[in-house]
């Protein structure tokens, strides 16, 4: 590797590793600086979001629910790392310090909070700057984030960058913090891990104050780097030319645009490895000639395309979709499992059937969970499952899982500061492959309805804590309303 700085997996480091102790010392030094100092902890955290009634102009800049999510956060982390490195060097630490990442999907106990962040004091008795009491129950005691929350599979399997159901998110204006075009990476694992960790991490206005925020985002950045190895980012100039301003080490200004953050080599850093716990999602997958049950349109067989060498060129952004069915009434979530039927309209599917004969399209199906609203994030991540059997086994849950819904940023989306209108959250998932599998197995007999289950995902509490503290997902006083669940066809 020719890059000067290498970000390593924090679980490969001992608690007293120089990288970790230097990070902790730098955090303490930055926290001692004034809020108005661009290299202070408070300023850097406020650039993401702040609860202050008198924010400075460079504060409250994070981009969410937007295709700018990955580019803004890569630049944000880049400058933060430079500021911390300068502090590390000033403290006498390693000159090649780089921000470690937390790969919560690394297997074993890697899905628990790294041990250096858990205790209020260090081994020598001094205060631990990496510790924060304000996290969800059990996190500091070693509760595990389930694979349903940490999995990168939903993101890495997407073929295109642009679109709410694709990797990077949908097209939005560059101004405004919270839109509703959340991409797959932003939803899972990014939003879900924020909500699962809870406390300051559960609110975008306070999340960056938790020292684990930066390791979480380093992992999100690493997942983008992995996806880029096989896929093409958007070449749209609205994304590549959009620059964002930050503060650099020394307090001076820094700015990067989309084109500037596409390659981490150009930014002179890399990651230590690109192992994934599961096999790489295939770049090319032959779609079997599956017939969906009547009255869905028939899928007409297509000759398989050979794999193309090199990264995939970006396909057309999210295809023109058409709604084929939706729920009649809003869905209310209060912490228990909820199952809602989505009826497929027969007249629409009959028309589409005739279209199919004329055009021979390759059909795709999408599930949208729209207008998700709540007073506050209740701190629960819901798994979304399609046609889940009653009393599902672990294999059933894995096979029917199409995505997650979590309420990170719901307060800010409702009452935005900038030029974006108030809105609910929205999650868009492709379910083509699952419907293919169900049809091929003859386990989707009723083609006129798709059953969608919202099932709260619980943390894996450590044995001692599980007995001592009653942890529940119920939140009857803080209901979440889903305006509509709809199925779309492309």
């Amino acid at each position, binding site marked *: 590797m020719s890059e000067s700085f290498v970000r390593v997996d924090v679980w490969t480091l001992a608690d007293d590793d120089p990288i970790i102790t230097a990070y902790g010392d730098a955090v303490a030094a930055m926290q001692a600086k004034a809020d108005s100092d661009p290299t202070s902890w408070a300023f850097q955290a406020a650039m993401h979001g702040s609860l202050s009634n008198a924010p400075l102009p460079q504060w409250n800049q994070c981009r969410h629910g937007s295709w700018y999510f990955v580019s803004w956060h890569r630049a944000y982390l880049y400058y933060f790392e430079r500021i911390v490195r300068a502090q590390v060097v000033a403290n006498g630490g390693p000159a090649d310090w780089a921000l470690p990442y937390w790969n919560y999907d690394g297997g074993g106990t890697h899905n628990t909070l790294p041990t250096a962040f858990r205790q209020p004091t260090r081994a020598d008795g001094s205060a631990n700057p990496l510790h924060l009491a304000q996290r969800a129950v059990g996190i500091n005691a070693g509760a595990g984030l389930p694979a349903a929350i940490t999995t990168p599979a939903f993101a890495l399997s997407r073929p295109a960058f642009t679109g709410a159901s694709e990797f990077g998110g949908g097209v939005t204006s560059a101004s405004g913090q919270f839109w509703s075009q959340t991409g797959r990476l932003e939803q899972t694992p990014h939003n879900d891990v924020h909500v699962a960790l809870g406390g300051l991490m559960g609110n975008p206005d306070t999340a960056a104050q938790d020292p684990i925020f930066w390791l979480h985002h380093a992992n999100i950045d690493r997942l983008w780097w992995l996806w880029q190895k096989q896929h093409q980012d958007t070449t749209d100039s609205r994304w590549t030319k959009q620059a964002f301003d930050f503060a650099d080490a020394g307090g001076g200004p820094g700015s990067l645009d989309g084109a500037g953050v596409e390659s981490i080599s150009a930014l002179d850093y890399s990651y230590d490895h690109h192992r994934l716990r599961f096999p790489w999602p295939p770049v090319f997958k032959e779609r079997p000639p599956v017939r969906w049950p009547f009255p869905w349109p028939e899928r007409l067989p297509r000759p398989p395309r050979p794999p193309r060498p090199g990264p995939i060129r970006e396909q057309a952004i999210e295809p023109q979709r058409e709604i084929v069915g939706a729920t009649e009434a809003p869905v209310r979530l209060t912490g228990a499992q909820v199952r809602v039927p989505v009826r497929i309209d027969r007249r629409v599917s009959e*028309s589409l059937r005739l279209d199919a004969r004329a055009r021979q399209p390759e059909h795709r199906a999408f599930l949208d969970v729209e207008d998700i609203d709540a007073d506050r994030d209740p701190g629960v991540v819901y798994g979304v499952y399609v046609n889940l059997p009653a009393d599902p086994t672990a294999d059933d849950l894995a096979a029917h899982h199409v995505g997650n819904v979590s309420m990170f940023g719901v307060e800010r989306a409702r009452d935005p500061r900038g030029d974006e209108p108030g809105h609910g959250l929205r999650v868009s998932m492709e379910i083509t492959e699952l419907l293919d599998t169900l049809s091929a197995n003859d386990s989707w007999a009723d083609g006129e309805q798709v059953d969608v289950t919202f099932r709260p995902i619980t943390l894996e509490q450590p044995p001692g804590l599980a007995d001592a503290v009653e942890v529940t997902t119920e939140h009857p006083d803080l209901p979440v309303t889903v305006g509509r669940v709809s199925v779309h066809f492309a």
Partner: protein
Amino acid sequence: MVAVPLTRARPRLRPETGAAVVVALAWVLLLARPGPHQTGSADLPQWTVMTVAMMGPAALPGIRHTARNSLRWRRRRAAAEFGLGYLAVWVGYGAVVLLPPPVPVGVALLVAAGWQLTPYKRRWLLACHRGRPLPPTGPRADRAAAGFGLRVGAACAGSCWALMLVAVSAPMGPGWPAGLAGLVLTERVTRHPARTTRVAALGLAALGFAYLAALLS
């Protein structure tokens, strides 16, 4: 198997095209006979034409949202329901604002400029953009589409009531409706609404002072 009536084979990519045609027709009628000619609800039909022409473009995104979020066989119906709900708000406003004699246009311009600078203007303008989830079928779907039209109409009225007051008070001629409609549409589609409303306030205030000065001299 029950035969189901077939709808258009291909969905329209631009469902708001039909509404845009209606808006264009309203402009033709308006330019032939611009402005309400007398106060009172007797001129409500002309007010309606003026509203469709001037506020119609700002409703097109809402029509697009309604159509794209409706099943293809009830797209036109849902869009029409939205349009009627939207129009109902403005016709109601017209019935009220046409009753008294019109204020001098300079005063109306200054009132509009002042309203542009209030936080309520920003809140209502952003509310125009808000989409709503729509049920797919049945009377619930009809009610939701019409209700969505009413909501967007109310947000629009909250944002632009003062500009339409200027339109009522303005001298005859096509320039005023065209200019005000252009401002309404710009505010609706701009990516920087805060900046646009402030700049518009300056322009409206300058015109208002100019007209008042001419009136007083």
